[in-house]
């Protein structure tokens, strides 16, 4: 049996996906003893009724909060600093340290890293700070970010260091924003990951524990503390996945009507269509997120295939959507979506390739990395499906440089999970 758990500060909800394709739901309010105790109570009840649980997927998007207690310092590595203060994008009041360095799109050094200069500047960083390091060209060659990190290690004292090259974007600002936000989520993510692992491990020592992601998939829970940004916006995508499971949809459009409005998205091969960025408070973030947009009459007008419509009980429906077939539910779609979410992984990056053979090689290598990681997550290799595998042109950039984008999932398409048929093989051990 697979279990999906929605972790919320006021209540904890679970969906139990049984091997026969049926599902049941359970819920417990969060009392004064806290979220951890509530999850323990909920999992305890599940353990009594269904002792064989193969996997538990947590959606923690409601429980991850920004923690910005420690002072932030931003390190920007570029060939030259801005000549005018007005040209400097600020990050609140955070001090900015400029260091000479950076690499080209081919990974060659654009300017040497100013080791001595950074060593001198870094001495002024207060102990206990959060330090976000972003270097020009780091997506291709992170050497200067790593060099800065090593100098910070030499300084001693507690520092939290985040490197921008962990986030796949060829925009300096997008990587920096993502790294800063990721870093601010880490304290909550560490606490949650530890608590969830302890509680769930006690109740279900054999179950694989995972956390949902913004793309509507899931990864092992152990990944949460390192990259909470990829789980911080998973709520709507996982709701959407739960709705798709409920109406048995693998390919096509779906409108989810909830208290938050109408969300329109697309399912392809049993997983949400995904875009490589997300806008948050005016900033772009580098994370793979299910592509959900507000459904409007204009957007849906004239479609030959009417989108499936799922309505959360009590959610208002506009007049232009009334009259069609509606799947109504009063269950927590997020918990259901978490239970249904496939393991997911991506290979993203910028590579140099001069001909078709080299490009094909890069793509094959990226696919192999995705398959290997999914197997390491606990998926049967035969259950891995590559949903996207392409090279993307880099507009106005070097013709020898292309972007690689490979998406793999392990698990059955979501549309068939609730059919009740037992013939489907379990995707995960």
């Amino acid at each position, binding site marked *: 049996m697979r279990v999906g758990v929605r972790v919320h500060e006021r209540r904890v909800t679970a969906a139990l996906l049984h091997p026969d394709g049926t599902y049941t739901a359970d819920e417990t309010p969060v009392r004064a003893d806290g979220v951890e105790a509530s999850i323990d109570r909920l999992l305890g009840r599940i353990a009594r009724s269904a002792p064989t649980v193969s996997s538990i997927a947590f959606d923690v998007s409601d429980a991850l909060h920004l923690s910005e207690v420690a002072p932030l310092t931003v390190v920007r590595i570029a*060939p030259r600093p801005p000549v005018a203060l007005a040209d400097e994008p600020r990050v609140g009041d955070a001090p900015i340290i400029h260091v000479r360095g950076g690499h080209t799109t081919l990974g060659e050094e654009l300017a040497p890293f100013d080791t001595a200069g950074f060593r001198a500047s870094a001495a002024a960083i207060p102990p206990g700070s959060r330090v976000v390091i972003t270097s020009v060209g780091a997506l291709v060659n992170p050497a200067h970010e790593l060099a800065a990190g090593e100098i910070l290690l030499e300084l001693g004292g507690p520092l939290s260091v985040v490197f921008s090259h962990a986030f796949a974007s060829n*925009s300096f600002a997008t990587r920096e924003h993502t790294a800063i936000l990721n870093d601010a989520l880490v304290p909550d993510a560490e606490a949650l990951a530890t608590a969830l692992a302890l509680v769930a491990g006690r109740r279900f020592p054999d179950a694989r524990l995972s956390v949902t992601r913004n793309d509507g998939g899931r990864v092992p829970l152990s990944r949460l503390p390192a990259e909470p940004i990829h789980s911080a916006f998973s709520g709507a995508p996982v709701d959407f996945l739960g709705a798709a499971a409920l109406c048995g949809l693998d390919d096509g459009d779906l409108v989810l009507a909830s208290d938050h409005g109408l969300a329109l998205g697309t399912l392809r091969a049993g997983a949400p269509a995904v875009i490589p960025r997300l806008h948050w408070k005016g900033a772009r973030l580098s994370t793979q997120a299910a592509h959900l947009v507000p459904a409007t009459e204009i957007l849906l007008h004239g479609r030959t295939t009417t989108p499936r419509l799922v309505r959360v009980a009590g959610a208002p429906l506009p007049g232009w959507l009334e009259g069609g077939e509606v799947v109504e539910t009063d269950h927590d779609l997020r918990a259901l979506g978490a239970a249904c979410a496939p393991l997911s992984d991506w290979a993203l990056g910028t590579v140099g390739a001069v001909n078709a053979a080299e490009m094909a090689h890069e793509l094959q290598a990226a696919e192999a990395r995705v398959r290997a990681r999914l197997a390491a997550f606990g998926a049967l290799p035969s259950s891995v499906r590559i949903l996207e595998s*392409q090279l993307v042109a880099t*507009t106005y950039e*070097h013709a020898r440089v292309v972007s690689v984008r490979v998406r793999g999932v392990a698990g059955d398409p979501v549309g068939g999970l609730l059919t009740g048929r037992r013939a489907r093989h379990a995707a995960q051990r």
Partner: protein
Amino acid sequence: MRLSAEDVRHLRTGALFLACAADPEWCDEQQDRILARMEGGDTAPELLGVEEFDEDALVAAVGFVNNGLPLSELRPAGDEFVSSVELLERELGRRIEGLFPLAAANVNSMVPLLTGMQLDRPVVDADPMGRVFPLLFQSVFTLAGLPAGPLAATGPVGESAFLRVREPRRAERLVRALAEEFGGWSATALYPMTARDLARTGVLGSVSRMVRIGRILDSDASASAKHEQLRRSEGVRRIIRARVADVAGLSRPAPAGEPDHPSSVVLIEESQGRFVQLEIQNELLLLMVDGTPEAVIPDIITMLHPDDGRVASLDDLWVGNTLDLVVLPAAGQWYTPEGRRLAAPETLHSLLPDRGRAPR
């Protein structure tokens, strides 16, 4: 006239509309740099018609030429265009009285505003393209036989070069190569000429057109009202509303020496089942509906969001997205036989497997 902060914002919107940019982030940052200076007390950018200059006054184009890391990754320090303009002035021994954009679309449309504020020079309401073409020789000045140089180029590391080059095609190859060696782009000052030559050969009024278009698109009007105003004011035709069905990131090999690879996007117009194809290489080159070309570069092909008429970008070409595809005519010079030869798809190799198979 002095541009207001609202004018600058409208210009940005119009510039993105005319370019269907891949990197709107940098357009935003360029706008923010201008607005920050205005808020800081700097004199607002001045926009003048070319007729307001002395006929013998020297004017020049400024613009980024890219080949490598994008501007959003390798951000300018801020003095690169000042260096290039001053270098060009030193070598020519004359003051440049006005600056115009290398292209009246995308980020290059904003460059003369910021550089003009830094150097206290006005912006000329004209440009060499009337839109954006990927290659710098695709200009009406090439059609008129004017040289692209001498020119000055400055890179992100602060290195500069002065090129005594006349032939625009050679200028393209040399500056593009410099842009790569510089690290990704070259802040270029080029096409120095008299105001008389600019008035005779340039695309006039192209900067104010961007402000005009932006004012329509930034308004609170409905999407259909915006389409109607754009049709009446700028001759914008709404071709089709369609949904992205597939994207081929690298649909053909790249031509040698040019940035980027060609891509193809397939969209479906669902009410009548029409099949829409977009061919892209840096810009939108070709729009076909059911196999029939509806618009071909030099036509300006661009996209709007259907629900509110916001400008869409190449970033919006994701499977499932519904977009309004719109077309407007380019400057008249581009529809002459010589203009078509310089800007037609064959020139950009969108339909050809490689350079060696070009038709004769």
